[in-house]
């Protein structure tokens, strides 16, 4: 056992040296944990931002102007007025996602209590914005109408009042979410690619043969790769969480960072194991890239880090329980946003550890097999 630990340490040191000698990998790690996190967090958002709105005003009243005037950035671009017969062409070409049409004598009908209808055309091919954007616009129209009526002296009172409180991210700041999820996705991508590539590089260079004729066991070789690459990634991830997310992007972290790091270590062990497992199925770098790409895309997109797990069909949600990323995303959201403690997140940690052990055992079994079948 002591010899095992010693060999793992020796080999890990060698792995770290190899990593250090590869400037491209270094740049890649730096890029994904700094620039990429920042760009994605601040740039790509699924929330309604900058949505393009046009309107057709056949009423030209104070009310219609008031409503149009309330459609404001950052959710919407300033609305543009178009003619009634230009609506189809404008939407076909994708110039506008939303087109509002105020009917003639709209304001007069409101004042008479006739409940006139504003038509809202939505380009439903712009999925991420269409639904929530339409809900926003509906709310703006209602609120502005009520305000208009109140200002003109009519008495409108809602029968009940819903006080909505958003917990954990009161202003629904998208950066809070996407920055941390981006780090998680990057951890997955790098863990699989780095360890898998480390194994394939050794095989392509023939150095793995050299290791295997020495008094070193496959489990030592694999553990060393996991430790060394995992260490590099976890350090980068912690720095990114601290410097990019907390400092540069000003995202508050609700829960315990050490607990998060502990979970991340367990997660890393399981995903790096997966990387080695995938590498044992392929014989060259391009093949490995081709195999890893879909696995990573599925792992990242369906883990709940991009769209909600609730929107997936049940069978797919069940299938995704096999991926450690699903559990890590749940774990990270609980700790970082909701301030959950060990009592709440231990099941996720246990599952990640179990999956990791399974990947490692499978990889170990395939390791010798794949070495023996290589020519």
């Amino acid at each position, binding site marked *: 056992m002591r010899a095992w630990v*010693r060999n793992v340490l*020796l080999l890990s040191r060698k792995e770290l*040296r190899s990593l250090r000698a*590869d400037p491209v990998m270094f740049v890649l790690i730096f890029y994904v944990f700094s620039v990429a996190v920042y760009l994605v967090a601040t740039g790509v958002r*699924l*929330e*309604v*931002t900058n*949505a393009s709105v046009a309107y057709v005003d056949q009423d030209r009243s104070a009310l219609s102007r008031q409503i149009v005037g309330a459609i404001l950035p950052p959710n919407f671009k300033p609305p543009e007025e178009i003619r009634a017969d230009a609506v189809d062409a404008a939407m076909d*070409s*994708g110039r506008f996602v939303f087109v509002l049409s105020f009917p003639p004598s709209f304001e007069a009908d*409101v004042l008479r*209590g006739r*409940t006139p*209808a*504003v038509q*809202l*055309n939505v380009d*439903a*091919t*712009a*999925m*991420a914005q269409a*639904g929530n954007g*339409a*809900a926003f*616009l*509906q709310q703006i*129209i*209602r609120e502005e109408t009520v305000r208009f009526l109140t200002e003109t002296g009519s008495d*409108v009172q809602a*029968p009940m009042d*819903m*006080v909505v*409180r958003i*917990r*954990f991210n009161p202003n*629904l700041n998208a950066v809070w*979410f996407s920055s941390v999820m981006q780090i998680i996705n990057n951890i997955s991508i790098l863990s699989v690619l780095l360890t898998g590539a480390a194994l394939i590089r050794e095989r392509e260079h*023939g*150095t793995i043969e*050299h290791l*295997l*004729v*020495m*008094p070193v066991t496959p489990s030592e070789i694999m553990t060393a790769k996991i430790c060394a690459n995992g260490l590099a990634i976890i350090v980068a991830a912690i720095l990114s969480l601290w410097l990019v997310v907390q400092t540069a992007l000003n995202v508050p972290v609700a829960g315990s960072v050490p607990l998060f790091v502990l979970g991340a270590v367990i997660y890393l062990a399981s995903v790096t194991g997966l990387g080695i497992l995938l590498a044992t199925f392929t014989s060259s*770098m*391009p093949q490995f*890239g*081709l195999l890893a790409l*879909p696995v990573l*895309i*599925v792992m990242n997109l*369906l883990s*709940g880090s991009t769209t909600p797990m*609730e*929107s997936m069909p049940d069978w797919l949600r069940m299938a995704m329980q096999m991926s450690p990323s699903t559990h890590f995303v749940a774990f990270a*959201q*609980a700790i970082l946003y909701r301030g959950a403690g060990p009592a709440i997140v231990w099941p996720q940690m246990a599952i990640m550890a179990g999956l990791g052990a399974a990947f490692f055992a499978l990889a170990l079994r395939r390791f010798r097999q794949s070495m023996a079948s290589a*020519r």
Partner: protein
Amino acid sequence: MTRDAVASLTGVSHRYGATAALSDLSLDIPSGCMAGLIGPDGVGKSTLLALVSGVRKLQDGGITVLGGDITAPAHRRVCSRRIAYMPQGLGRNLYPTLSVYENLDFFGQLFGQSRAERHARIMTLLQATGLAPFPDRPAGKLSGGMKQKLSLCSALIHDPDLVILDEPTTGVDPLSRRQFWDLIATIRETRPGMSVLVSTAYMEEAERFDWLAAMNAGRIIATGSPDEIRARTGQPTLEQAFIDLLPEAERRNHRSVEVPPRPDRDGPPAIEARGLTRRFGDFTAVDHVDFQIRPGEIFGFLGSNGCGKTTTMKMLTGLQTASEGQALLFGEPLDPDDMATRRRVGYMSQSFSLYSELSVRQNLDLHARLYHLPPDRRDERVAQMLQDFDLQPHADKLPDGLPLGIRQRLQLAVAVLHAPEVLILDEPTSGVDPVARDGFWQYLIRLSRDEGVTIFVSTHFMNEAERCDRISLMHAGRVLAVGAPSELVRQRGAATLEDAFVGYLQEAAGPDTASPVQPSEMPHRNGAASDRSFDPMRLWAFARREAIEILRDPLRLTFALLGPVILLLTFGYGISFDVEDLPFAVLDQDQSAESRTLTEAFSGSRFFVEQPPVATPAELATRLQSARIVLGLDIPPDFGRSLLSGETPEIRVDIDGAMPFRAETVRGYLQGAGASYLAGLAAQGRIPAMSAAPVSVETRFRYNQAFKSVFAMIPSVIMLMLVLIPSMMSAIGVVREKETGSIANFRSTPASRTEFLLGKQLPYAAVAMISFFSLVAVSYAVFGGSIKGSVSALVVGSLLYVLATTGFGVLISTFTRTQIAATFAAAIVSIIPAINFSGLLVPVSSLSTGGQLAGRLFPSAWYEQISVGTFAKGLGFADLWPNHLVLAGFFVLFVTASILLLNKQEA
């Protein structure tokens, strides 16, 4: 004897970065004869041959070949039809997945031969080389000797006037070597005017050449016939003559190798193989091999590349498991997991297998530690190795920058570092110059004789084999003979060991099936067809070859076709913005009819799923924190009464905001559920009907009435898949040929850049189109997504799009150097605009001006218009034609850029 020069070099210098390969070299190579370049690896032979053939670009000096200046493009075009070039490396210009016939057919097409002419020529050449029985065998599965014969056939298919062969016999067994030279001699008889320029590291082969140039360190050290060179130095063999010609500094340490007799040692055999067999699928690499190696013996292993030597050695180290039979070390069956045995064995693999990122000393140190040498002995042993192998001056350098000979010394140092009792060395001296090779052997002999180390060594060199105590001759997985070298020579009654080996091989292979070519059999050259600078036939040749290669790589093809479908399913099911079944719980402090109806208004909606109610606000908070609910309703006491009496009661709603998009959606649903609740109460007349809405909003979701994410995703996913996968696949196209070396065929034949690049691109575009149709079919069958607009506009748009995206891949391929770099570059460069700036997640109209511009500079945003327009919006050519036009423009742009970037000559 004076002859015209077929090629003249004057003052030629060539550098690779800081290393000089050729220094101010001048040479006249005689025509109409067999001219040879001799010298060890790395002295500049290959560079010289590549420059003469026009494959490599001349840096400095002048070269005339076949009476013209090789730097003039017009003359190079003429030369490409008159010169044949066979690069170094076994079958390096062949395509391993193509059959023997297909390989030759491809070369014939490049030279514009008709089908009938090709067939006649191929049959004649196959007859002449004895390859006729195997026209359908993939080139990759041929033995080393057969590969080289096939390479020669491909070089001779167009009746060249000058044949340039770069180390054609390295790694080939003596019989095949002999047959190879006989074949060349026969062909030269039928075409006496043909000049042959050849390089070799085997000095004994050079004895047959008409004229020789001996090279060392980028310079010519002697020229003349073999007799002249031997006479000049007064040495009996060319090898010794060569050593004599070396500068004083390089041969100072050279002593001739002497082998003292082996003292008898007792004990069981150090290494034993009993019926050792290894199969790979239906191929038997090692076939019932038996031998015993006694302790302290030097046991040589001879045979061609691919005859099973390496596999046998790997089985003896435990790197590979035997399919049958037994390997024994020190009299015990080999157990690959036994760490104690591993400490007693040292192994050196054929190719360099140490860490290139660690320095010489670090490599030694790492191995010392892994062998658990005690700390005090460790440094001492590392120091001793550095001294023994003369590595001191290089101790802190990285292995990559060192010459091959020194790297081989380092490998041997690592193998003997832990003082093993058995050494297994796989071709330790290949590529090492004669002086260094002798030094190597002196060390091995000392280990064997003084320290009793058993040495099992494989080699191609007969003079090394003669130094072994015993040797074994291997061919096609079987051991043909075992014995002391002198004994084997005597048994066969041969003059030399090489003759004896050839005798054994001939006996094993049966009668030679090759028959000499008759001049009349060779069809006449058809010069008319290939003179055009653009020839659709050559383009077709490249396209067909690439297509065959794709079809024979099932993994790649599977990925190309299945990958997009899997990802479409993933996106279709997974990237959904339809949020449903959100778990919620109620803290009902009122327990009235009204509060229960309110709860039902939520639980009745498809968006919400009710969880067991909670009793306290704290419990509600805990549930939210543990993500068991997304939404918590807190209904205050007296809610029902206040509501009915018009007092506007307040209900509190907590939403989990951890995922902002979901929270936003929940907030929208909440309004809907509240409104429908109030409308219900109003309909029952329990609250005043004036109630909520002074205005109504009629929302029409256009293009996707059901407002299901999947219909919106399909066109965008097709857009993404048709850029990501096709560009990654085609990006490997050119760069793979650079890595394997077959790009030399493009450089040395009349093929133009346009033919080469378009030919390589078209099969990938075809695969991408198949992928497109499968995506459309799957989206229809699985998700029920149909095309509402013009099908032809979509198909034509997709065709133009994949031509543009595969063209983009080829463009990447022309300037990257490795397959991995090309794959990643294509993926990263295309994924950013495709996902972020093309309308996949965010509509282009919502992007900033910069983002819109970034999107417009890449084909994806234009295709997205066609894809969404035809799928969802019911549009046709009349609305979309500008997008088609732009895509066609991208295709032309990418192809033109690739043509400009690809050099016909290597730098």
